[in-house]
């Protein structure tokens, strides 16, 4: 079989793995309520995350990498899922279990958001049903935006495949680790020590989702290919664009609104550029956003699969980049805020789900940091031992420089178009909405992001001006999808967009 066909098969196998995870998560209801596009997007994101984690665990257990070794466990899960699907189609599963709901007890229908039956409901009262348009011009605009997104995606894929892995972090960190692991046929005890001793600046402490995604691709192909492997990056972009659109459409019930904000996100130059070069920043933002979006959906719909998707996305977020730990903790804190705000209401039983969510996240974080501690892996740019009052005092002198960097990004049209200006204007226009209903949790997430990242900059050993200059525009990618989502929610809440 030729390499191109194998590459496509690899992507298909990855999606199949992700699809099976999703199916297993929604085992009682199947995948009802999810659109095909949303499932496809999530499947790829979950497939890559799961396989990369699996390969890491396999490597640490001394199991070599072959297509069969990697896919065998998933074949078993696929078999089980098929079995359940067959039972369900015969009507045997739900009858045998005497319930069809996902939560505790027989609750077959989704709960509505608290605002859905109130004056805040902008869906039923103000909008026509999903998929219907008020005018031909609205239909034309929607179609045009879909075309623009498709063009941008195609352009990203083209750009990615035109060059081998070549950008700085891609060759110095992620690509290099992938090559080391693949050529060694696995990851051994000495891996981290070797990376640390022989490859200056390769950051042995970084999480390994991106390197292992590449190793998986090489393993499936059966050879090292530094050009074709780049197809995995724009596919992260495409997958997330599908998820972003589907989530927005589910919330706003407006195709135009969903496609408009998806278009804004997809065409932010920095976002699309980073889908072509093999860095981990876009992927970190993607998993963080998916974690928060599905948590937000769970707040209003209480569908268990949403919570599970949020949890898994948060785990993959911390498996993508060190900053992912902070982002996963933000998701957890947002959940905690929700619990505290709703504890007096009559849904205590569901609020208890915070504990397994938090416990699972903390377990993964502790396991990863315990592993790093055991192998003596420490980040030289930032670690907890750097936090101290002295740094805070020193940083106060850098405020003008920091503000200068911020405004550079804010007005950095070349990278961000006018997205941050729009965010600011939407915030001003929808100040009340930003702190209303469940939107306030997304607002809280944005504040926590600003607070957390500022703390990292302030307490880092790296010169704050240099650190901001070299990472600021990349780190903003971590929050960009959430910021656009937040804008969409406010605009929707204010009823600015008619279908």
């Amino acid at each position: 079989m030729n390499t191109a066909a194998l590459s496509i098969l690899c992507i298909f196998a990855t999606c199949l793995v992700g699809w099976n995870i999703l199916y297993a998560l929604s085992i009682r209801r199947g995948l009802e309520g999810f659109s095909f596009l949303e499932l496809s997007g999530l499947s790829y994101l979950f497939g890559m995350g799961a396989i990369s984690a699996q390969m890491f665990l396999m490597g640490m257990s001394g199991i070599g990498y072959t297509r069969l070794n990697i896919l065998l466990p998933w074949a078993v899960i696929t078999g089980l899922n098929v079995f359940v699907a067959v039972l369900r189609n015969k009507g045997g599963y739900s009858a045998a279990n005497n319930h069809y709901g996902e939560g505790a007890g027989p609750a077959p229908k989704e709960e509505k958001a608290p605002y859905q039956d109130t004056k805040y409901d902008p869906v039923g009262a103000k909008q026509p049903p999903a998929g219907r348009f008020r005018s031909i011009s609205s239909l034309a605009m929607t179609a045009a935006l879909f075309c623009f997104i498709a063009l941008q995606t195609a352009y990203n894929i083209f750009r990615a495949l035109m060059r081998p892995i070549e950008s700085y972090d891609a060759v110095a960190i992620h690509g290099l680790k992938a090559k080391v692991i693949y050529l060694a046929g696995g990851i051994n005890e000495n891996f981290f020590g070797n990376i640390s001793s022989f490859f200056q600046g390769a950051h042995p402490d970084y999480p390994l989702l991106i390197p292992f995604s590449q190793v998986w691709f090489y393993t499936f192909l059966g050879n090292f290919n530094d050009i074709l492997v780049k197809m995995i990056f724009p596919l992260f972009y495409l997958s997330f664009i599908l998820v972003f659109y589907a989530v927005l459409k589910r919330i706003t019930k407006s195709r135009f609104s969903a496609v408009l904000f998806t278009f804004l996100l997809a065409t932010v130059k920095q976002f699309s550029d980073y889908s072509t070069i093999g860095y981990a920043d876009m992927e970190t933002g993607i998993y963080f956003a998916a974690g928060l979006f599905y948590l937000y959906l769970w707040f209003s719909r209480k569908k268990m699969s949403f919570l599970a998707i949020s949890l898994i996305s948060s785990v993959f977020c911390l498996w993508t980049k060190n900053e992912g730990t902070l982002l996963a903790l933000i998701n957890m804190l947002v959940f905690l805020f929700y619990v505290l705000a709703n504890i007096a209401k009559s849904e205590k039983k569901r609020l208890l789900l915070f504990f397994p969510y938090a416990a699972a996240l903390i377990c993964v974080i502790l396991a990863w940091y315990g592993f790093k501690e055991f192998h003596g892996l420490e980040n030289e740019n930032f670690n907890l031992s750097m936090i101290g009052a002295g740094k805070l005092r020193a940083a106060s002198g850098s405020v003008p420089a920091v503000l200068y960097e911020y405004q550079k990004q804010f007005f950095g049209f070349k990278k961000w178009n006018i997205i941050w200006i729009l965010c600011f204007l939407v915030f001003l226009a929808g100040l009340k909405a930003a702190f209303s209903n469940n939107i306030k949790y997304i607002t809280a997430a944005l504040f926590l992001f600003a607070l957390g990242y500022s703390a990292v900059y302030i307490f880092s050993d790296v010169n704050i001006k240099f650190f901001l200059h070299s990472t600021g525009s990349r780190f903003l990618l971590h929050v960009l999808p959430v910021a656009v989502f937040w804008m969409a929610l406010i605009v929707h809440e204010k009823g600015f967009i008619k279908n």
Partner: protein
Amino acid sequence: MAASKIIKIILVIWCVLWLNFIARDLYKKGLLGEYKILAQNDAEGKRAHTYGERFYEFLKFAKDYMPRETFYDFAGKDDFSLEMRRGVYYLYPGVKTKHPVYILVYDRPGYLKDGFEYFAKLDNGRFMLKRR
């Protein structure tokens, strides 16, 4: 209606900027020409064009002459330069170290180091030294 108009205006501004920056990349920064060249090339050609023809030629030369798994160092390239990073990536499983068996000299005619001798030469500025 006012909101709808504002959204349309914003969308127009957005699209103008979006297309402008794509066009800038393609025409002003010359990416269109680059893509044309890259699209016509095979994998080797793509690598050569991306790394820089001259540097890639040297990397290939070094890879051909060195054993697959060995220790080398560069002379003539900054430790943290992008070219160096690409070189380290390309030459793996050879490993760059401060105690090398080979020194890959790039654009430093006449360079010599104690304990090393000339090993192979691509041209006057690009050659390899080997530990005696």
